[in-house]
């Protein structure tokens, strides 16, 4: 029995100590042991298509510049002046030849090299300009244009870290005939007054769907989607779905689609006009990938978590979502829409429209997720007298039989988290 997790395979019970969701000490350890050691999603190459393009954001709590340098190489610079530490790039995004510190005027080119120091004759021989370029995170790498940084120099290679999660990233990218996906303009940035790990759970926990998202299901039903739950095999949802442990703390749901997909399963919300184009999208998939893989791409929904804080939901649309704690009881969430680069205007419009039926702060579902997580965090004030969260659904079943409404994947996350925190074996 550990401090945070009590697991009993015989009794088929698993419970989690709620202290991990309220403790400042735990959060401090997470910053070091998790965000300081894991690969953390930084950005997508399509956000900075041309030399000189940049976006600024916080990644693993660090202000960074994600940019394409003048030679076309994608880079990540720590957004802090080597002189006194000020932020050197304040715009959200843009294109530039230089980053310029407003404090004393030091400037850097897009490769990060120090380009200008006002009054540099005041420095002695010991001042080495070449060693005063913008710092990069210790590690920075990409998988299929998804760029990640890592603050631990000795971390495994990104592809080794991602492991089996790569196949699920591939399934998303295979929507595009040219295997080129792009982040679409428009960013959703919102806070949730809850511990960041609750968002990990919520992103893949399909057990909550019938109750949390009752109004979304009603909306789907009103629009002509059959959302009656199957009651066989212990199912609580309209179609069968399972969960997969991908190793290294990554996991995914893998669900048979009932709710429509822009690529490529029509539902009435898309309108009669869309049918023909969507049939064409499906034909292209089958021709390119073969019937089996095309069905994986077009007829399944997958909510993928790349440990610790990247979620790629490939459902009503594709969303990339990342989040980072701001204290034990608040997180900042950033979400983007992703679509095939060559998508037609009508298909792009359909993708974005479909996104808003479910996802985002104004969607028909996400606001109720936010409310649910905030209710959990409020209830957790009782943790000293009610310290254990229950997470035993599906315990004792084989990994192949784990339903998306079971809690196998949540246990996978927590066991991995526990190991990194130095608690489990």
């Amino acid at each position, binding site marked *: 029995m550990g401090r945070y997790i009590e697991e009993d395979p015989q009794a088929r019970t698993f419970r989690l100590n709620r202290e991990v969701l309220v403790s400042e000490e735990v959060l401090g350890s997470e910053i070091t042991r998790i965000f300081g050691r894991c690969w953390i999603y930084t950005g997508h190459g399509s956000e900075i298509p041309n030399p000189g393009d940049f976006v600024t954001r916080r990644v693993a709590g660090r202000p960074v510049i994600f940019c394409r340098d003048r030679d076309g190489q994608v880079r990540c610079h720590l957004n802090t002046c080597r002189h006194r530490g000020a932020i050197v790039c304040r715009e959200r995004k843009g294109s530039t030849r230089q980053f310029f510190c407003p404090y004393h005027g030091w400037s850097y080119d897009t490769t990060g090299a120090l380009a200008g120091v006002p009054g540099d004759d005041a420095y002695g021989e010991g001042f080495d300009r070449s060693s005063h370029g913008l710092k990069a995170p210790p590690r920075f790498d990409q998988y299929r244009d998804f760029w990640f940084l890592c603050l631990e120099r000795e971390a495994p290679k990104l592809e080794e870290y991602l492991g089996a999660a790569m196949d699920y990233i591939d399934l998303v990218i295979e929507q595009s005939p040219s295997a080129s996906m792009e982040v679409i*303009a428009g960013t959703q940035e919102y806070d949730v007054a809850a511990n960041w790990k609750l968002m990990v759970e919520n992103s893949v926990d399909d057990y909550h769907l019938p109750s949390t998202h009752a109004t979304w299901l009603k909306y789907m039903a009103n629009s002509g989607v059959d959302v009656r739950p199957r009651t066989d095999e212990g199912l609580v949802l309209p179609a069968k779905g399972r969960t997969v442990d991908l190793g290294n703390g990554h996991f995914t749901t893998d669900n048979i689609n009932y709710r429509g997909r822009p690529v490529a399963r029509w539902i009435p919300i898309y309108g009669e006009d869309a049918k023909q184009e969507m049939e064409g999208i499906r034909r292209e998939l089958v021709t390119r990938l073969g019937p089996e893989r095309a069905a994986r791409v077009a007829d399944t929904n997958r909510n993928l978590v790349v440990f610790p804080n990247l979620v790629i939901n490939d459902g009503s649309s594709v969303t990339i979502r990342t989040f980072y704690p701001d204290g034990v009881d608040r997180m900042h969430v950033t979400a983007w829409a992703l679509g095939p680069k060559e998508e037609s205007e009508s298909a792009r419009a359909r993708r974005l429209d479909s996104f*808003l039926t479910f996802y985002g702060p104004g969607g028909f579902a996400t606001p109720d997720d936010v409310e649910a997580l905030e209710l959990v965090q409020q209830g957790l004030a009782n943790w000293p007298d009610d310290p254990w969260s229950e997470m035993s659904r599906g315990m004792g079943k084989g990994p192949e039989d784990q339903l998306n409404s079971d809690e196998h994947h949540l246990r996978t996350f927590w066991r991995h988290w526990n190991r990194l925190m130095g608690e489990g074996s």
Partner: protein
Amino acid sequence: MTGEAIKPVLAAGPAVTREAVEDFLYLEAQLLDEWRLDEWEALLDDDATYLVPSNDCLDGEPSGSLFLISDDRDRLHQRLLRIKSPDCHAEFPPSRTCRMISNVRIEGIDDDLVRVAANFICHRFRRYGRVYCFVGRYRHVLRCRSDGLRIKERKVILASEELGTLGSVSFIL
């Protein structure tokens, strides 16, 4: 419901005035703040849209960029069904809101359509001291019908850099 009975929507007349538009916006604000959503829905024309662009892409179109909300008339009706349901957890119990509207101007009149701009502050209150302060601009396109003004387009442009502590837009902003 508290509040007096809804007044008849003001007749626009041949020359719509700022005063008439202001009264319309104030009435709309009152109906939303008092959660009289069926009466608010009666202010919508048959082709009404409700748009909230993402904070970092205010000039985008919903067909090409990600919005927070992009409802056509049908989806807006579905949204109201959702918000009125006790199963809409984000709005149960319903938020208390209070809107202040100012800087109202008629920006243009094109046949039977009036383009209106206004600034707003909308405070949303939940229990335990949670206060959310939405600030921004309304861009309405109103249609002058024989029976009064109706909403053809309702665009809400948020002033904040990101939603951030505002969280969700789970009510009609």
